[in-house]
């Protein structure tokens, strides 16, 4: 116990001595948490439409004003040829081309159906798909609004009308920040915990002070614990600041128990710090440690389900996300803060993360050798 106390004293001194690192660890997350959630909005709206109207009839104008009236579309260009409109797509000035062919109105009267030509910039597949969907819906509404055909006037057939009513639980106003702020906080806590610990033991190796520790009677697990605890506290401090920011700045109040959140983050930090320490014991230089940690962090962050949905990944990839601790944290943050899930809902995930923590830390202790 006394040994750990002394080791902790040494680590804390080293952390507080280096003011610039401390500033990065504490200030960088705060700034990012204040800025980044504003950027993360995937809502598809303001689709820029480039219009090629070859008909110039009252009917085509009616259709155009209907499209303009929808919230989703913004008529940015009116071109006289498809090629010109295509150039707007190339320069990203438009997302979609709507071409109304010559004889649009005439065909309606003569043949009862008309063709419209739509071309969508589909580099971003989802945006294209949604944009096309909105446009089709608008066209259908336009169809409904037209005077009905002969059959209907006789009153024989009645049109079916299936209405879909939405209710969005847990986030009725579809506020993206409610989802992104806890998620980004999760990423920041993970990055700090992982990077700082990964660099730590390796620095002692690089500077040579590790040999001095190796010749003392300090036990291996004492040494690892001495490294673990200060950063564990630091992680909790950053997490607390983050929670305060999300409450004060974004007005996100947790639906579930804060205690449960802290319980989870405590166990989670052990897992992430253990991961960092494990990498640290494998590497000889800080450069190696940071590169390896970065490699894993980037995979962890991008596949954690915050930016792209896990359910859409191929099956083998969905399986790998089960080995990704960040997935669990983001999921639990979302569950507790937004849905008010309780301990019983979270328990399976807590168990897995605890298992990660035990395995990674034990591995780190075994892999740290006091002799060369």
């Amino acid at each position, binding site marked *: 116990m006394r040994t750990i106390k002394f080791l902790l004293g040494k680590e804390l001194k080293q952390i507080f001595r280096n003011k610039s690192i401390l500033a990065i660890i504490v200030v960088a997350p705060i700034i990012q948490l204040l800025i980044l959630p504003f950027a993360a909005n995937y809502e598809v709206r303001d689709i820029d439409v480039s219009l090629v109207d070859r008909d110039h009839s009252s009917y085509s104008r009616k259709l155009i004003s209907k499209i303009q009236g929808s919230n989703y579309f913004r008529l940015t260009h009116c071109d006289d040829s498809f090629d010109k409109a295509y150039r707007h797509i190339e320069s990203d000035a438009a997302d979609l081309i709507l071409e109304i062919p010559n004889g649009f109105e005439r065909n309606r009267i003569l043949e009862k159906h008309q063709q419209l030509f739509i071309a969508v910039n589909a580099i971003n597949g989802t945006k294209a798909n*949604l944009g096309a969907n909105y446009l089709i819906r608008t066209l259908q509404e336009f169809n409904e609004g037209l005077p009905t055909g002969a059959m209907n006037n006789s009153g024989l057939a009645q049109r079916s009308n299936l209405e879909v009513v939405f209710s969005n639980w847990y986030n009725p106003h579809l506020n993206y920040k409610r989802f992104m702020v806890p998620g980004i906080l999760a990423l920041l806590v993970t990055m700090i915990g992982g990077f700082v610990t990964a660099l730590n033991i390796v620095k002692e190796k690089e500077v040579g002070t590790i040999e001095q520790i190796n010749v003392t009677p300090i036990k291996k697990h004492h040494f690892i614990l001495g490294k673990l605890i200060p950063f564990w506290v630091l992680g909790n401090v950053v997490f607390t600041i983050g929670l305060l920011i999300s409450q004060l700045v974004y007005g996100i109040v947790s639906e579930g128990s804060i205690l449960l959140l802290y319980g989870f983050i405590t166990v989670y930090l052990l897992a992430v710090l253990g991961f960092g320490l494990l990498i640290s014991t494998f590497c000889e230089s800080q450069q190696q440690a940071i590169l390896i940690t970065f490699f894993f962090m980037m995979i962890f962050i991008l596949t954690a389900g915050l930016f792209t*949905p896990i359910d859409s990944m191929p099956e083998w990839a969905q399986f790998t996300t089960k080995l990704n601790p960040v997935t669990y944290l983001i999921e639990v943050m979302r569950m507790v803060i937004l849905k008010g899930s309780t301990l019983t809902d979270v328990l399976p995930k807590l168990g897995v993360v605890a298992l990660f923590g035990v395995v990674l830390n034990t591995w780190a202790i075994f892999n740290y050798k006091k002799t060369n």
Partner: protein
Amino acid sequence: MKRLLAFIKKEFAHVLRDKKTLLILFGMPVVQVLLFGFVLTHEVKNVKTLIIDQSQDATSAKLISKIKANPYFKIEASTLNVRRVEQYFKKGNAKLAMVFPANFGREHAGLHRTKIQLIADASDPNYATTAENYLTAIVQDFNSEINWEADIRYTIQPEMRMLYNPELKGAPNFVPGVMALVLMIICVMMTAISIAKEKETGTMEILLLSPIKPFWIIVSKIIPHLVLSVIDVISILLLSVFVLDIPIKGSVLLLMAESTLFVVNCLSLGIFISVETSSQQAAMLISLMGMLLPTILLSGFMFPIENMPEVLQWGSNLLPAKWFYTIVKAIVIKGLGFPAIWKETLILLAITASLLGISLKRFKIRLE
């Protein structure tokens, strides 16, 4: 010239000596581009859906079988009790619930007008709205099929063409983005470390004692990493063409030139960071903590820039990755030539020049 060559040789020796780092430097971009090319997509697939069919009649059964056949939705359960929905949502076992009212079929047959309720777990609003939109489209499709049988009306037949990416895959959007991201981080970090390391280990003093000018010291630091990064670029491009099936529509030469420019840009950012910091740790943490998330979020490949508040839209202009992302998309996917991207190129050049200029100015030739 001979002096410079000697310096470059020294830097190469530093880089090539550390085999583990070298392995990571070459392996990382390859693994990540492959992984993200196959895994990342904004598409919403396999939405875990609950069906609460309170009417259980022929019409609802027909609509349900239509939804079952759709690859976007995965029916988790057809529970009867609405109260169970919350349990599913709280455990994260379902994202969407579709509730048919008890008199669905009767209402539809008699009044030709009825309602379906969709309940979404909107804690992830992106996911919820996309799933709702897809499901609404299915319902409307179903509706117009019925109408088609009931009466013959004139219709507007939209003919849809998806440009550049007819299969709506995720890769054409993500590969240019990940390419920018990986190159950015590797280049910035590697150079940021290299000068900071010399400061930390004390060898900076020796470098400064030599008669070579600071400018050439910086150049000699950049060149080995430039060579490594260009090899990385080539391997990423080969992978995306042959494994991910994204052919390069435009000029390969132009793409290589632009990539080199971007690499030099990132390297000079790294130099700038390392001039400003005194320890390796600080240099690394700044380049990672400071660059990773902002590059992912603000460069436009994850979230559309036009949705951001204006301050952030303006701020995103400072990110080299944003410009490079636009350039790669234009060359690889749209097949455009230099006239379409001269503006972006100019901006990258300007950022590079100013970063190098500032670093040179702030490069201290005396140690405190």
